[in-house]
C-alpha cells in the first residue's frame, strides 16, 4: 500500500540484491551440474568429454561415499543430540535465579565465537594430545592409560569439538524462547495443581518446541558442511574414518583434481541439504505470516 512512485523506487532498490543473489545461485549451480556430466580432470586440460552419469556412478559406488555419508549422518546426529539436550539443560539452568547470571551466560556462549580452526587445533593439541594433552594428564592421574582421541576415536572426537562450538547456539536460542514464556501460564498451571515436572513437560517443553525445531534445522544446515574441524585435525583419517561428505568432495576436487566427480558429489550434497532446507523454509515462512 503506497503510491506508485514509492513502488517503483522500491523495485529499483531491491534489484541489486536480487540480481546478485540470482547470479550467485544460478551460475555456479549450472556449472556444477554441467561439470558433473563431464570427464574433467584439472591435470588434463582439454580432455573433457561427456560421460553421462559416469561421474555419479563412480562417486556413488565408491565405498568411501557410503562411509562418508554414514560419517556425515553420525556427525550431524551426534552434535544435534548433544547440543539440543545439553542446550535445553543449560538454558534452564541459566534461567534459574543465580548469582552472576550475566557472567555465566557469557562463559557459556563464548565457544560460539571461536573460529573453527582455532577450536579444532586447541582441542587437538592442548586437550586431546595423547602425550602432552590435558586429558591425557587427567587419565593418567586416574591411573588409566591415556586415549589417543583423534587416532582411535576420530569421529567421536570431532563430534565433541563441533558440539562444543554449537552448544552455545542451542543454549542461547532455547534461553531466549524460555524467557518469552508467559509466567502467568506457569502460575495458572500451578493453580491447577501441576508440579515442576508436569509444568516442564506440559507447559515449558511445548512452548520450546518451536525453538527446538529451529535449532535442529539450522544446525543441520551448518553441520552438513562441517569442514575446517576435519581439515585441521584428522584430515579425514585414519583412512576414511572421519571423512564426511564435504571433505570427500574436497579431496576429489582439490587433492585429486577430479572436477567431474567432485561436481557430481556436489550435486549429491546439494540434494541432501535441500531435503532439510525445505522443512526449514516452510517453518520460517509460516512464521512470516503472523
Amino acid at each position, binding site marked *: *500500500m*503506497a*503510491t*506508485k*512512485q514509492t513502488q517503483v523506487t522500491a523495485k529499483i532498490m531491491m534489484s541489486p540484491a536480487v540480481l546478485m543473489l540470482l547470479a550467485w545461485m544460478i551460475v555456479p549451480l549450472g556449472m556444477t551440474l554441467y561439470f558433473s556430466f563431464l570427464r574433467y580432470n584439472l591435470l588434463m586440460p582439454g580432455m573433457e568429454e561427456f560421460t553421462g552419469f559416469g561421474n555419479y556412478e563412480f562417486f556413488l559406488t565408491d565405498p568411501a561415499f557410503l562411509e562418508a555419508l554414514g560419517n556425515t549422518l553420525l556427525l550431524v546426529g551426534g552434535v544435534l543430540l548433544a547440543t539440543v539436550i545439553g542446550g535445553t539443560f543449560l538454558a534452564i539452568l541459566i534461567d534459574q535465579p543465580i548469582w552472576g547470571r550475566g557472567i555465566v551466560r557469557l562463559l557459556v556462549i563464548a565457544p560460539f565465537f571461536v573460529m573453527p580452526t582455532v577450536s579444532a587445533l586447541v582441542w587437538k593439541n592442548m586437550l586431546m594430545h595423547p602425550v602432552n594433552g590435558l586429558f591425557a594428564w587427567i587419565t593418567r592421574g586416574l591411573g588409566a592409560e591415556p586415549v589417543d582421541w583423534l587416532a582411535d576415536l576420530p569421529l567421536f572426537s570431532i563430534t565433541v569439538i563441533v558440539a562444543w562450538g554449537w552448544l552455545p547456539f542451542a543454549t542461547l536460542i532455547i534461553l531466549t524462547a524460555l524467557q518469552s514464556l508467559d509466567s502467568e501460564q506457569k502460575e495458572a498451571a500451578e493453580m491447577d495443581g501441576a508440579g515442576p515436572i508436569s509444568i516442564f513437560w506440559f507447559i515449558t517443553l511445548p512452548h520450546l518446541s518451536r525453538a527446538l525445531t529451529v535449532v535442529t534445522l539450522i544446525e543441520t544446515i551448518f553441520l552438513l558442511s562441517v569442514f575446517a574441524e576435519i581439515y585441521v585435525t584428522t584430515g579425514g583419517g585414519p583412512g576414511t574414518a572421519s571423512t564426511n561428505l564435504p571433505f570427500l568432495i574436497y579431496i576429489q576436487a582439490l587433492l585429486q583434481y577430479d572436477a567431474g566427480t567432485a561436481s557430481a558429489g556436489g550435486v549429491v550434497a546439494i540434494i541432501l541439504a535441500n531435503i532439510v532446507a525445505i522443512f526449514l523454509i516452510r517453518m520460517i515462512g509460516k512464521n512470516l505470516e503472523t
Partner: protein
Amino acid sequence: MGAITLEKVTKSFGDVSVIPGVDLEIAEGEFVVFVGPSGCGKSTLLRLIAGLEDVTSGTIKIDGVDATGTSPAKRGLAMVFQSYALYPHMSVYKNIAFPLKMAGVDEATIKQKVESAAATLNLTNYLDRRPGQLSGGQRQRVAIGRAIVREPAAFLFDEPLSNLDAALRVNMRLEISELHNSLATTMIYVTHDQVEAMTMADKIVVLHDGYIEQVGSPLELYRNPANVFVAGFIGSPKMNLLEGAAAAKYDAHTIGIRPEHIELSTEGGEWSGVVGVAEHLGSDTFLHVNVDNIGLVTARVNGEFGVRHGDRVWVTPPADRLYRFGADGLAL
C-alpha cells in the same frame, strides 16, 4: 484556504475496488466526519486526500487547484494518525518542530511556534521528554501539536481517539472541537464511532462499501436518514428495523423506530411483549423487549420506569416518527 473537492475519485488495489467512485465538496472551515463500519473505505479516502495513496482515477482539488498528482509533502495538509506516529527518537519539542524544520523555517520562529502550540495543548512541561515517557492523551496532544504548527490548509484525523480510554476520549473530543472553533480550519475526521461523528461534525459523510450513503448535518441524518443503512448506523441505541407483517401494515418493506420514540406502557398498547434484558444507565434504561410475533425491540425509557425481567409490557410505535423504507432500502 481549505476547500477540498473530490471529483469521481476511484481507488482499486489490484482487482479489488475499494472506492468505486466518490464525489464530494468540503467547504472551507468545515468539520467533516467520514463515518462507517470498518472496511467501508473511509481511511482509504482520507489517505487519498493526504496523498499517501494514488487515486486510480478522478481528481482531487485543494482550494480549486488540482492536487491529484502532488506529493503529500506539498499538499499543505496535516495528519494525525491513529497510532499518533510520533518520532520515538525525538523529544516532544523536536517532534512538534519537525514539520517546520522540513519547511526550512528559522530556529527562532520554530521556537516561538512550538512554545505557543505547547501552551495551547498543555505540553509546556513535557517538551524535553521522549514520546515513550508520555501517556496516551499526551501523545495525542503532541501529534495534534505537530499538525497545528504547520498551519495547514486542512487537518486530517485518522481515528485519533480509538487508542484512548473512554473518559479521555470524551475529553479529547471536546478539545478537538474547541480547537476547530478557535482555528476555523477545515478538518476531516475519520471514525467508526457514530457518537464522535454526531458530536463533532458540521457535516457527516456516511460511507459503506466505498459508496457515500448520505451527506448531511448530524441532525439531518438523524431526522431524515436516506436509507436503511444510515438509519441503522446513526443514533444510539440503534434504530429498531422491522420487516414483514409489521412493516406491511404501514405499506413499507421495512419500518424503523428509534428506541427513544417508542411509547411503552404496562397497561396496554399496540404490541405486547416480555421484557428481556434491562440495561440501567441511571438517567435512562434500555429495555430489550421480546415482542410477540415481531421479535426483539429496544426501547429507551426513563430511568425510573419500574419493570423487570419477565414483565409483560405494551409497545406502541409513534405514528409521526416512524421511518418507512422500500424493498431497495431507500426511504419512502
